[in-house]
């Protein structure tokens, strides 16, 4: 079966057979049959915090924007200011908003030239993103790059192991700063990720994906499922689209004010709505003080009213349950709140994410 084609409605990445061979427990993720784990999710989580692991994230979509109007288009479509990107390979995290100020998607945009940018968007939003961009694109070419796959190598040893795997990569990428990318052969190598650890994301032609994956395996990089990816990003205080962000909530109420470049004179879609929107809630972290597990959609009772958990779970690094929550704006770090879990109300402390970065607990 060809990568990216459909079989029983479920899409496969070029690494699908590799996951099955490695004993991956496969689950549906946004229409893609993806590995949840290869044995133990918790063990995989620790491996990324302490050594190096790799994720197949080829279900995410790279979209290239090419043409004279590319910069102007992105200045209008994105809430963060792509005008800040001037060095080729530099990247920016941003939301793409609807006119009401809701989040259509969150993405990373790479700058190469004012007439050439690459965006990497979420699997579940990819189709609507492309449709939205095409509506505004004019003469700019919007290319959905389903001919590319993405492998993320993450962990304190990630870069060193990748350098062992690929001769010449160290020379090409040792000087790369966080949120910067460079070309290596036909791969884009970016010092980005979604775990709170150092590492690379490789965006590469699908024909070479299995070979690159196996080379990394041979260099001692362990495969990691999407289950650990979720607990790693939660510890790192990073939002997940569809849970911590959605089309009816502004980025200001999703902990993403830092990504909205509202002060610049440029107009972008959603800007006026954000200026008018009442800011009643704010994203905070929660640390469960009682025994149990925080989960998305649980109700939170504070002295200032009710709020809701948007992402929650068990933190393997802290051996404690943590969450991201949308709480009344007056709720302060240090407050003790109550979370409704089944028939009980459990105590949690309001904290400032991230919980863990670079292997260190920050709470």
């Amino acid at each position, binding site marked *: 079966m060809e990568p990216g084609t459909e079989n029983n409605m479920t899409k496969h990445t070029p690494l699908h057979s590799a996951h099955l061979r490695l004993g991956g*427990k496969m689950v549906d993720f946004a229409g893609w049959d993806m590995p*949840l*784990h290869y044995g*133990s*999710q*918790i063990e995989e989580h620790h491996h990324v915090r302490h050594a190096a692991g790799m994720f197949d994230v080829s279900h995410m979509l790279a979209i290239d924007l090419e043409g004279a109007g590319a910069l102007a288009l992105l200045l209008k479509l994105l809430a963060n200011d792509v005008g800040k990107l001037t060095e080729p390979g530099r990247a920016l995290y941003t939301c793409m908003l609807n006119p009401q100020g809701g989040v259509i998607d969150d993405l990373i945009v790479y700058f190469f030239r004012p007439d050439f940018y690459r965006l990497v968007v979420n699997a579940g939003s990819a189709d609507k993103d492309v449709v939205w961009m095409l509506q505004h694109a004019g003469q700019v070419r919007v290319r959905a790059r389903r001919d590319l796959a993405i492998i993320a190598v993450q962990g304190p040893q990630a870069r060193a192991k990748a350098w062992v795997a690929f001769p010449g990569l160290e020379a090409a990428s040792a000087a790369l700063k966080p949120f910067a990318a460079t070309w290596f052969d036909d791969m884009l190598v970016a010092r980005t990720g979604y775990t709170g650890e150092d590492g690379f994301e490789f965006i590469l032609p699908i024909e070479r994906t299995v070979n690159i994956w196996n080379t990394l395996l041979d260099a001692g990089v362990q495969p990691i499922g999407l*289950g650990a990816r979720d*607990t790693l990003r939660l510890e790192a205080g990073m939002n997940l689209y569809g849970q911590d962000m959605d089309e009816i909530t502004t980025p200001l109420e999703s902990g993403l004010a830092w990504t909205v470049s509202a002060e610049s004179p440029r107009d972008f879609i959603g800007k006026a709505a954000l200026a008018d929107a009442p800011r009643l809630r704010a994203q905070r972290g929660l640390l469960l003080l009682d*025994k*149990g*597990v925080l*989960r998305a959609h649980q109700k939170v009772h504070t002295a200032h009213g009710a709020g809701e958990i948007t992402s929650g*779970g*068990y933190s393997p690094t802290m051996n404690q*349950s943590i969450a991201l929550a949308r709480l009344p704006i007056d709720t302060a770090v240090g407050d003790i709140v109550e979370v409704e879990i*089944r028939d009980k109300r459990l105590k949690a402390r309001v904290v400032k994410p991230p919980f863990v970065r670079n292997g260190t607990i920050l709470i």
Partner: protein
Amino acid sequence: MNVPADLKYAKSHEWARREADGTVTVGISDHAQEALGDIVFLELPAVGRKVNAGEECAVVESVKAASDIYAPLSGEVVAANQAVIDAPESVNADAYAHWLFKIRPDNLADLDALLDAAAYAKVAEEA
């Protein structure tokens, strides 16, 4: 799939073992622990609680989700296993060696109504 022949099973993936003292020990099947993934927290019923067959009486929280555990038969809870509360991962390591609670059944014959290993293996396969 590991389905010991000497145990009885509920469709909802609990196992039950008759003890010499007339009580019934309850745990979750190997298939259940596998499907749940790494278990991180358990909530067990209070000793002395009266439960009805099919009633939610415990919760297993894994990295993935919270799952209800049902009483496989009616009776009184006479013990809850503190060892699995202290080490939830032990249920993943061996789901049959690490029981969750014990019931003194109202009617021990209710045990016969549960699935035998062969019938449960079919249920688990189709799940």
